[in-house]
């Protein structure tokens, strides 16, 4: 019995339900197919969307996807991206109170983990990092901020993230970084415009 389920998504896309833990393993396996019928692969929290170039290709493509074997993490993972973090966020103390930890313990709980980029969403280059210590998993703030500065390191629910640009936001702010999360110029050089790509390993280093 396979754990994966394929749902049709319009004329030329399918949504693979694979579960949070294997989203990147499946996305990596699909990328490795290097299938010319595929125009985009969009990992998300528990699913991977695969879009075909033409509707005529979706039948064959979803047949091939039915039997795809997800990669093991070791088969595609690269060196961790290290983000220098200043833990001076406005919500640091409140997070400490709500999680029952000291501020130092919050910082070490947040920075002692290898995170995995589960997916990007919300704004260009905004990466949802999974692997957050369960003690730090808090609901979003009751009232979102109208402006969270670029580079803010934040947590909400099962994720941590860095805001690539200033935007409204309801996450708890733990600190900030000077790292550039999204840069269109990197794309001109043939690289990913996003510093954090789905599937990558990420670490925060307190500075």
């Amino acid at each position, binding site marked *: 019995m396979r754990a994966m389920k394929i749902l*049709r*998504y319009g*004329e030329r896309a399918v949504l693979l339900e694979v579960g949070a833990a294997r989203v990147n393993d499946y996305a990596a396996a699909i990328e490795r197919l290097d299938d010319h019928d595929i125009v985009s692969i*969009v990992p*998300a929290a528990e699913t991977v969307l695969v879009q075909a170039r033409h*509707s005529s290709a979706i039948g064959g493509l979803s047949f091939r996807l039915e039997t795809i074997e997800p990669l093991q993490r070791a088969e595609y993972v690269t060196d961790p991206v290290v983000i220098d973090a200043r833990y001076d966020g406005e919500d640091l103390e409140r997070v400490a109170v709500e999680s029952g930890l000291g501020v130092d313990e919050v910082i070490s709980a947040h920075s002692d983990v290898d995170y995995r980029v589960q997916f990007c*969403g919300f704004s260009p280059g905004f990466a949802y990092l999974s692997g957050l210590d369960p003690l730090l998993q808090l609901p979003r703030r009751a009232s979102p901020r109208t402006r969270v500065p670029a580079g803010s390191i934040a947590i909400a629910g099962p994720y941590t993230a860095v805001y690539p640009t200033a935007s409204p936001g309801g996450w708890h702010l733990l600190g900030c970084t000077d790292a550039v999360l999204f840069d269109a110029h990197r794309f001109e050089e043939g690289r990913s415009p996003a510093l954090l790509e789905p599937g990558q390993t990420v670490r925060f280093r307190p500075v």
Partner: protein
Amino acid sequence: MSGLTVLDAGLLSTIQDEGRSGLEAYAVSPSGAADKPAYRLANRIVGNAAGVAVIETTLGAVHLRAEQDLVIAVTGAPVALMLDDMGAAMGQAYWVRAGSELFLGRPLVGLRSYIAVRGGLAARRVLGSRSTDTLGHLGPRPLAAGDHLVVDHDPERLPAPDQVPTHPIEAHPVLDLLPGPRLDWMEAASAKVLTSAPFRASDQLDRVGTRFDGPSLFRSITRELASEAILAGALQLPPSGAPILFGPDHPTTGGYPVIGVLAERQLPLAAQLRPGQEVRFRWAR
């Protein structure tokens, strides 16, 4: 001075081309012209190659001045066109002398018109496209009065002098839906309501999406949905019960169920919906 100057940008005018594709995994929306056939036609009429940048207007009321001799054509939502004090027609190439002014009136049907300039607009490419992404704030910002637009070099092809098909804009469109991945998250009764009752495009309508007013639709599964991919044409059911049809600047993921997906050939039709316009949905066969 060369190129053209924006004297009035109307409600919202943006630079658009074919958009950015394949970058959804970085949370980059596709953007690009909302009504692709109208956009492509405008380029064809002035002899541009495919993929050249044009101006997309919203409910017309745009005023431009040519700062050099230009060849211009307007397609999409039909507007009254004036070249200085002379009337002009949609879907035709016009020679516009330096110093001449082009006025677009308000369309009586449809929402978005396209102004193509021979040579194309020379905005800087961001992630391979000159399109304005109104959600992700990529590409040039929306046009404003006083903006000066630079025109690229003329292509070698001559403007096409042929008759062009004007694609009609329907006053009472019927939108064909394919089942969405989360159709089963909607009550069966609501699924019937969706395809039997009239809905109205609300005034919450932009390049990101269109919210529809009508009878409330209810969910059969009310637990939270983990964020999953969104595509242009996806019809999402938020907790308010008023469905949202996503456009070219859609977010790349969302946490509410996608109950239907618009047939792709109808994306241009959806791009021309106006606030208050009545539509019907039906399941595509």
